[in-house]
Structure formats: C-alpha cells, structure tokens
C-alpha cells in the first residue's frame, strides 16, 4: 500500500509512523517545537490521537503531548510501516 502524500497531524491514527513536513504556525510555536527537536524531516510515531483531547507522540523515545489546536497545524507524511 502506498501511503498518502500529506495530512495534518490531527488526522493521523494511532501507531502511525510519520515524517514531519511543515509546521504552519506562528514563530513562537515553531521555535518551541524546534527546541524540542521537532523540525521538518524528523520521524515520529503517533501514540494516542486522544480525540478530542490532546495528542501524544513518541519522538526519539520521549512522549510529547501536543495541544489539539497544534496538531491541526502540523503537516506530516505518513510512512509505510
């Protein structure tokens, strides 16, 4: 199966591995995510799409929670598992 091209993080399902393409947000959020290493190109896995609550990802072994609003601003590319 070929993965879809690009989706918003909020639409990603649990256990999906993705590559970060773009963050469509203001400077403050981008910088904060960048400080944690969430930069375009990195890969991570969705642990819990806590619909409608916050979102948990596994990034290099740490669990990071993103607010729901934020997950709607992060564009990712699903990877084949």
């Amino acid at each position, binding site marked *: 199966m070929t993965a879809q091209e690009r989706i918003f993080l909020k639409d990603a399902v649990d256990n999906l591995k993705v590559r970060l393409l773009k963050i469509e*947000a203001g*400077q*403050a*959020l*981008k*910088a*904060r*995510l*960048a*400080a*944690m*290493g969430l*930069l*375009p*190109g990195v890969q991570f896995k969705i*642990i*819990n799409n*806590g619909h*409608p*609550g*916050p979102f*948990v990802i*596994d990034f*290099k*072994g*740490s*669990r*990071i*929670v*993103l*607010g729901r*609003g*934020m997950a709607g601003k992060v564009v990712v590319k699903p990877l084949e598992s």
Partner: protein
Amino acid sequence: MIDNTKKIAVALAGNPNSGKTTIFNSLTGLRQHVGNYPGVTVEKKEGACRYKGYELNIIDLPGTYSLTAYSTEEVVSRNFIIEQKPDVVVSVIDSSNIERNLYLAVQLMELNVPLVLAFNMSDIARQKGLVFDIEKLSTLLDVKIVQTVGNKNKGIDGLLDVVLQTSGEPAKNLASLINYGSEIENEIIKLQQKFPDSGLSKWTWIKLLEQDADIFKHINNEEIVISVMESILRLKSILGEDPEIIIADKRYGFISGACMECVKSTIESRHNHSDMIDSVVTHKFWGLPIFIGLMYVVFDLTFRFGELPMNGLELLFGWLGRFVAGFWPEGSDNILKSLLVDGIISGVGGVIIFLPNILLLFAAIAILEGTGYMARAAFVTDRFMHKIGLHGKSFIPMLIGFGCSVPAIMACRILENNRNRITTILIMPLMSCGARLTIYALIIPAFFRHELRGPVMWSIYFIGIALAVIMARILRITLLKGETIPYVMELPPYRMPTMKSILLHMWERGWLYLRKAGTVILLLSIILWAAARYPRIETAKLADLNEQDTQTAMLKHSVIGRAGTAIEPLIKPIGFDYKIGTALIGALAAKEVFVAQMGIVYAVTEHDDISVLQQKLSSDYTPLQGFCIMLFCLISAPCVATAAVTRSETGAWKWAVLQFGGLTAMAYIITLIVYQAGRFLGL
C-alpha cells in the same frame, strides 16, 4: 596554589525532567532557599555546598529546552548566565534522552561559559541499553563530562571535582563550534564587517538572525536592526524557511553527528512500563475517574490527616495561652497579658495552624510530580479546564481551595505559566473553604427547613464555583490576557520519587510559608486583635453588667464595633445591620470568627448551645437575610491569611489588594441584587 577561601557560583541548567533538582538536592541538602527572580514570578532556588575548602553557591535555574526569548523561564536563565556570570555552569543531561538534552548544552557552549556536562540518570540509560563513549564525546564537544545518578548520590563528588577544576580555567571560545552552513555564516561575516565597532559577539549575531525579541530590545543602533532584517529576509528567500528553524536544525544536526559516533543503543524503547500505565491513567473513559479518585485521596490526606496535628497544635497554643495568663490574677485586664495571650500567642497559633495542611499537601504534590503523574493529570483535565481559560493543572489547587485557600494558593506554584497562576490565585477564595462551612452551619439550620438545608448548602458551593469559572474567563480576556503558551509538554517516564526529595519539598514549602506569609499573617492578626479591643470603655459604665453584656458593650465600643456601626447605611441595602457588619469585619481575621463575633454581639455565652444563637438570629432576620449573609461571606474579602499568602506568592501587594477589593465589590453587587430581588418577590 589552591585559594582556601574561594567562593564559587555554580548554575545548574537543564531540561525539565532531566533530574536537575535531584542533583541540586544532592549538592545542597537542607542548605537551600527559594526566592523569586526580580520582577517575575519565576522561582529562584539557591543553596550552599562546602567542598574541599571551597564555598559553592549553587543556583538551580528553571528547567528549559532552549535559550530563546519565547518563555520567561528561558529569558531568566539566559540573563542570569549572561549578567551574573557564574563561575561554572553545569548542564544536567538526562542520559537516556541525550540528543534533546544536548541542545541546551550546545547553546550554553556557544555562550562561552565555563561548562561541565552532568550525564545524569546514567543508571537508567545503562538499563535501556545505551552505551556512551564519554571520552570521545568529551573531545568532540570540547567539554568535560561527568556521569551521575542524582537520586542515588552517585558521581556527585566527581562532579564537584570537575566543577572546581573548571572554575580555575579560562572559558573556552566555542562560539564557532557549529557550522551553520555557508549562507548563514556568510551573513554573520557580512554583518560583522559592516559593524566592526558594534562589539557584538557571534552569539549575539546568531540570536539576532534567530529574531530574538529580547536581544533586539538591547540593540539601540537602528542601522544594525535594519541590516539584520535584510539578512533575515535574504536568508528566508534562499533557504525557504525562517533562519531560526535552520539554525535549530544545524544544532540538532551537529548533535546527532556527535551522538552517532559516541552513543550506541542496544535496545529501543524506554517506555514499556510507562506506556502500560499510561494506557490506563490517560484512558479516554478511565482517565478522568482515576484522576478524580487520586484527587480525593490528596484532599483527604491534606485535611483529614492534617486534623490530628492541627488539634494538637490548638491544644498546645490553648495551653500556652492559659499558662502565660496564669502569671496574672484571674480576671485581670492587663494590657500586656491580653497582648501576649490574645494577640501574639493566638496570632502565632493562627499562623502555625496551617502548617500541617501545607506540609501534607506538598508531600502529596511532590509524590504526584516525582512519579510523573502530574503531567498526565494536566493531560487528562486539559480538555475541560481549557474551556475556562486555565491550564489542566489549575484543577488541583482549586480543589484544595475547598479545604483552605492558604495551601491552595501555595499549590499554584505547580503552574508554570504566570498568567494562569495569577488567575488561579485570584479566584481561589471563591472555592468555599472549610472555615466558611462553620458560618453555613450556623445560618442554614437557623433559617431553613430540614429538607431545604441540603439544597441551600449546595447552591452556595455551586455559586462559588460558577463565579470562579466566570471570573477566570473574564480575567483571561482582560487583565491577564495575552499569549497562551503553546501547549507542548513532555510526559516523563514514571519514576519512583525518593523520600529525600519529598521531605525536602515539604520542608522548603513549609519554611517559605512561615517566612513569607507567616510574618504578615501575624502582623495583621495583631492589628485586628487591637481593633477588637480598643478603645476601651470606662469600667464604671460596665459596673452592673454581667460578663456577656460587658463583652458586647466592649466590642461595640471598639474600632471594629464602631466600623461595623459606621458601615450600616452602606450595608443596609444588602439586608445587613450593624451587628452583622461588626461580625463581618471581625471575620477578616478568619472566616469562622464570624460565628464567635455574632455570639459576642448577641451576648451568648460560650457555654450556650449554638441553637441559642440560632434562635436569636431567626427572630431578628428573615431567611433571605440569612442567605445573603452566606452569599456575602462566600464571595467577599478573603481572610487576612489568604491576602498575605496571595501577596507572598504573587510577589506584589497589588494582586492581594485587587483580590480583596474586587471580591468585596462583587460580593456587594451580587448580594444587593439577590436581596432586592428577593424583597421584590416578597421573600
């Protein structure tokens, strides 16, 4: 030669959850104290450590991921390092999560500070199958590295040895440690050449290209600002991304390059057991009930376990009062006796009495934070707390507020965001505390039929909660509006907190309370004592009165009694007379004093059953007035202890005054509406 009297300032920097605090505790033990950085509510922890004849002053900087200007904590940390120039900076690194932790360390290196890296929690990293080539990494990064296990006190002496050694060496120039790529490096060179006399370091130029607002503020030369802006635009068009993202990317690239050579991983995940626990405690359906259950335990621990030592303290201070009073003949009216017994001893008692609650609550909070559950609690409650403009964690202090506002306001320290914290502190008195329950217990049976008592009681609590929610919302869009910090948070793996860290946390908070709030509470209660006693009435006028009537006459004659009478015209529209006015003013000392003051006003003896007072109340007032008393006591002016702790926790009287004045004005308006509407309806 070693200078034996040398003092060294050591700053600890590190990510949240890197175990920075355990290192700090290992180094300083009980020799630490908490303050605030000037002008901000960020906590400043300092401690002393003596080692090999050196006196080390250890400063625990706030936990941050970076040194940008986007959060107060980061600016505070950065400015401390730049302005105070500590002799050594120790960057505490969670060894099991080395890349992200090195990001901060790399930025510290670029600042050219004398740096030591503490690879903390190295035992956990080993368990997780991570193997480090420390020597090689140390060479690659050109920095000294020490492996530590903070919570087991391992590697601490080794760390101190390296700190002493580093403090004697000149700082290295590592500003060019990372190559930011030809585009960015060329822009920096161009800027440096264009402004050769600016005196700005490479670090500053990088920060300017990162569009760091705080650094821009310090640049007075407009030409520089314009040139930097041009460079940023140029870089954006060439690189297709904000320069700060590219800069972050290069730093991470440098780090992962170094790690690839020096860190070997044999096993992948460090989250197995944590994920298992999380699948239960952050579950869609079970998460909230589990949270509420745990909060019930915290509340119960704080107030039910607290009751025993509190009763003991009450007995102790009662005994102390009687003991001191024993130096005077019975019935003596000596001023010194009254000052000592009713002013100072009961004042100090009134301060100490909160201590069991505060210590127990902070033990519970230390456990919740130390295990890592607190981050989950925020996650679970965020959905509904977010709607009222507060952080999920605000739920915990608000719940404690039903017991007592004083520990609850102190518990607001768990909130990192300043605006959230102040909002939560300001609305706290609306959570109907235990002391106000004694007022309801007096009023409700006096005025309401048996079957109405429950609903009336719940309506009071509900009104408080509803007002708190509305006020929080209003504060967040008016006085305390502004950027909500984007909600990104790490869920740390679950850990077992050490007994030492729990005890230190309790001690620290208890001491902070006594030192900061305790003194103000004592002062204010002595003032209220004097106001209830002075001016005195001539003894001749009291000659033929019995004991109760004497007390009543004395109270009426005192400052409080006179103030109560003076405000009568003001409080008449809300259904109150001078008696209620007097009791309300007396109740500023503590809400439950209202009941005692009403007893004195009505000349009821202490031996009488409370029903005697209730009968007198129900013959003088209507149920509507009774309800209005409760409503006013719920919303109005918090007690002096709350005001004092609000001041000490926010660092400014203005917030305490705003809380006091705002709540009293709100109480007046709401009670006025209720009373007048009630009368209109013929209640």
